């Protein structure tokens, strides 16, 4: 796979404060990259630098081999982006807004505009003024605006902000489609972990302006150790037995019993010990570890230290 956008040791200092600290990563064509972090982590700031809205204090960003610093026009040509909210001219119709942005790129035909409008499902309302649009419709219009010039990199800052579950799902499927069919690199930022998990191939976790981890979603969620919930009675005694028999294993008292973090191969052994000690086992369930759990783990372990 070929990378289309690369951040090289990007740092941003505003008024003496390091907002972004030495971030480097690459995003490949055909990949959905998630940019994950809590409020104020620096996601939007990083995106602003990627599209040339903000200067880069040190380091560089290259898009299709062109530096956004020194060859802005060559680099940004490949990019379609929504930074924060999809702001449009409210006093004009959606269509006029698209005409406006079509004029700013080369060779965008009326047919292309209509095609994109149909694609985002706005055909019925496109000639209404934007001020009459709902937030979801504005998101769609923003997306249409990004796609007019067939970008190779799509950068969306919190694209599902304000969408209903159906809308979120639609956007998610659509972004996956763009990455797969048009070989676009899609970069989305979010602080909603659950949706990143379903949408992205890879995610980078940013906290306090530092990129603390980049991982494939599959690997990220599936580590070799899993959690299993044992529904067992009496549970207090079982806890003590677990602690003595498996001193290294992590235990959590849960509502239905005890959750233990062990390898799958260990389960028969555990069952045997419990049965031999006359405990009653009602069920053993695998507890899927969500990205959220992993996220909290990672940020607690690596992000806790402050960089000032």
């Amino acid at each position, binding site marked *: 796979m070929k990378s289309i956008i690369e951040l090289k040791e990007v740092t941003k200092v*505003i008024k003496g404060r390091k907002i972004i600290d030495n971030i480097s990563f690459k995003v490949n064509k055909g990949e959905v990259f998630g940019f994950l972090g809590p409020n104020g982590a620096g996601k939007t700031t990083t995106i602003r630098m990627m599209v040339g*809205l903000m200067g880069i204090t040190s380091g560089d960003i290259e898009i299709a081999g062109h530096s956004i610093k020194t060859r802005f*026009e060559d680099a940004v040509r490949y990019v379609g982006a929504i930074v924060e909210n999809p*702001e*449009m001219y*409210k006093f*004009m119709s959606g269509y006029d807004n698209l005409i406006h942005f079509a*004029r*700013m790129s080369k060779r965008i035909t009326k047919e292309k505009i209509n095609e994109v409008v149909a694609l985002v499902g706005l055909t019925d309302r496109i000639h209404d003024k934007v001020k009459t649009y709902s937030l979801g419709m504005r998101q769609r219009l923003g997306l249409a605006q990004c796609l007019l010039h067939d970008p190779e990199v799509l950068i969306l800052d919190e694209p599902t902000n304000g969408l209903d579950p159906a809308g979120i799902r639609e956007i998610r499927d659509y972004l996956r489609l763009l990455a797969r069919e048009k070989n676009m690199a899609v970069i989305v930022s979010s602080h909603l972990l659950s949706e990143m998990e379903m949408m992205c191939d890879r995610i980078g976790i940013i906290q306090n302006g530092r990129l603390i981890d980049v991982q494939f979603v599959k690997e990220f969620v599936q580590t070799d150790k899993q959690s299993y919930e044992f529904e067992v009675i009496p549970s207090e005694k079982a806890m003590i037995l677990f602690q003595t028999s498996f001193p290294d294993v992590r235990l959590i008292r849960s509502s239905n019993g005890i959750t233990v973090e062990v390898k799958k191969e260990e389960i028969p052994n555990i069952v045997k010990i419990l049965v031999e000690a006359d405990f009653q086992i009602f069920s053993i369930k695998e507890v899927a570890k969500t990205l959220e759990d992993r996220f909290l783990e990672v940020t607690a372990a690596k992000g806790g230290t402050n960089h000032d």
Partner: protein
Amino acid sequence: MKSQLQRGGQTMINLIKNEWMKIFKRPGTYVMIGILLAIVCIFGAIEKYEVKGNNSSPDNRWEQNLKQENNALKQQAKSAQTKTEKDFYKQKIVINEYRLKHNIPPDATTYHIWDFVNDAGGLIQLAGLFTIIISAGIVASEFNWGTIKLLLIRPISRVMILLSKYVTVLLFALLMLSILFVFATVVGAFLFGFPEQTSSYLNYVNGKVTEQNMVLHLMIYYGLNSINMIMLTTMAFMISSVFRNSSLAIGISIFLLLTGAQITTLLAIKFSWAKYLLFANTDLTQYFEGTPVVDGMTLGFSIIMLLLYFLVFQALAFSVFKKRDVAA
């Protein structure tokens, strides 16, 4: 490279189309034009009411009157103190002699269309006010709306974006002036009619009198009187792009539009450095008819001062706009 230049030109035209569209998709713009048209009508009605009855039939004794006037002027010229005063009388005398020689009666006796168009030139202030409002908003509004983010992430340099906005402001100024001029002509023709003979304007340059087509003269007159408005529009544009604040730009510019000339005149009485002020130089008609604000100022000096102010405004606007981090 020529093709590159052409492409740049095409981009510029597209950008200007965009700006024009954004101005004319807003109802406020039509309100402005409506007010301008209405005020020309009201102004016409007032003039009509005032000149009613004053319009006497053409004066048969105009030649005698002019001769008398000239004799009086010659006396005044003799007792005049300064050179500018002398020049002023001399100009009147020469023009009167020209009229006598070529049999062109002064048309001051009847009020007709061209007098009205000339007087309506006072409304350039109003056209200026509206242009300043547009100019002050054209950059600041994009920041307020948040649309600046979309504008600046297309493959077009910031310099081009800002330039297209400035050119649009100039085109808007031209539109407002044209509307004023054309509509004043229409209202003038309707209310006051054309003079009997085609009138021309008598120009006085370096002791010589030349005849000039009246419409052309009025256009030049409008043009010269627009310099003030263009400079203030440019200033509003600069404030708007530097501070991203349209109210500030409108406030300062309109305050200066209304009071700048008076303040400068007051200062000029006491201080000769007043000649370096913008408003001492915006009225170029002072060199053609009348006396300069500060003695010793020349047309060349004023043009250089105007250019300097213009360049400073533009340099500020462009350098700040080019460098700024956009976090709107």
